[in-house]
């Protein structure tokens, strides 16, 4: 069993990473990665939703019939998202101001539903929870990485405004990498989103090749 959990962690973080391997949840990956901070915030909120919704779905799946399973999963995910949305708005308002707009979009992120279908609807509660959690963390890491690259190249900063998201103790993260006004604007515009995601995939592929693994040419959508 321990081995199994280790696999869940490994899958989530690297081997079956939501963005890099399954290529799900692409919308926030593009839209929310104009800076590392945005990527991190979006990722964390998603991770929370995924962990809780996977947990609930695994726990309740005995009551769900085949025909209405998708609406029910979505209902659960949407409820979790709304819950997060309302609570952050009420109790962590500073954070809400940074993330606020992005939160409802988690609902339609393919990744939580994908995990619900593939994992939580078949596996026990604890593994499902962990799967959601680590998939979410893997997602967060990818988003932060893409955000960091785009931010550095596009604006010359790294983790700008991190203190707004994480609190003042994280002010030290905010760095300026390049002199002001030297960024390549394209990186933070739509083409940059696609480009850097593509480059990150190439990066992962290079690491995989170094590790002696075969190149996987297809994403989650190809059987």
């Amino acid at each position, binding site marked *: 069993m321990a081995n199994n959990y280790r696999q869940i962690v490994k899958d989530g973080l690297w081997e079956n990473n939501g963005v890099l391997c399954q290529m799900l949840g692409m*919308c926030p990956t593009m*839209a929310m990665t104009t800076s590392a901070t945005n990527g991190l915030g979006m990722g964390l909120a998603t991770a929370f939703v995924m962990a809780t919704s996977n947990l609930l779905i695994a726990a309740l799946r005995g009551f769900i019939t085949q025909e209405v399973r998708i609406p029910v999963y979505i209902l659960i995910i*949407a409820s979790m998202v709304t819950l997060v949305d309302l609570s952050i708005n009420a109790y962590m308002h500073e954070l809400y101001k940074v993330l606020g707009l992005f939160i409802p979009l988690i609902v339609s992120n393919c990744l939580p539903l994908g995990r619900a279908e593939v994992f939580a609807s078949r596996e026990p509660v604890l593994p499902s929870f962990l799967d959601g959690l680590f998939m979410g963390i893997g997602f967060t890491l990818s988003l932060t990485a893409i955000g960091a690259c785009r931010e550095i190249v596009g604006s010359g900063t790294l983790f700008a405004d991190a203190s707004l998201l994480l609190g003042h103790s994280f002010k030290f993260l905010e760095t300026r990498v390049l002199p002001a006004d030297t960024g390549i604007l394209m990186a933070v515009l739509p083409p940059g989103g*696609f*480009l850097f995601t593509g480059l990150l995939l190439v990066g992962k592929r290079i690491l995989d090749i170094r590790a002696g693994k075969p190149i996987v040419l297809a994403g989650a959508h190809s059987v």
Partner: protein
Amino acid sequence: MQELILLVVGTALVNNVVLARFLGLCSFMGVTTKIDTAVGLGMATTFVMTVSSMIAWGVETFLLVPHDLAYLRTVTFILVIAAVVQFTESVVRKVSPSLFRTLGIYLPLITTNCAVLGIPLLNVHDKFNFIQSMLNGFGAALGFSMILAIFAGLRERLALAAVPRLFMGPPIGFITASLLALAFMGFSGIHTN
């Protein structure tokens, strides 16, 4: 009339769901290896998006606003969409098994196509009336289908190209999408309102 046409053109081209608004990217990357499949999914999405835009408008206007239930917006909208999708799925499965086979695993994904949720939410944000909502949904779906077809064409071409192994598959797909987005930047600055 002219405004409505502009609305459709604007959402289809200038604020293209995929390239400018970053919605519906999973299908965009996933279902575009063949032109025919892409067109099929485009049509299915167009149907779902238009219908759910209309129903969502009804839910918003007659349920959420009068009773101050804005916080239920996400939940109710997504329920509507999920139902429309699953209904479509059942129908397609019956009517065209071959279409179902090619689209089968993607139909449920329409539910989580951000664009399908995003457009009704944007309609609310932009305070569109019924006709506008419907046309906005239709225009967005049109833009979505168009991009899907274009991208599928590009990818069919890439499948025959001598792409280096390091870039083969998804990476070259993203880079191509990046160049496509670059081309669509040309429309930026067109004001349709």
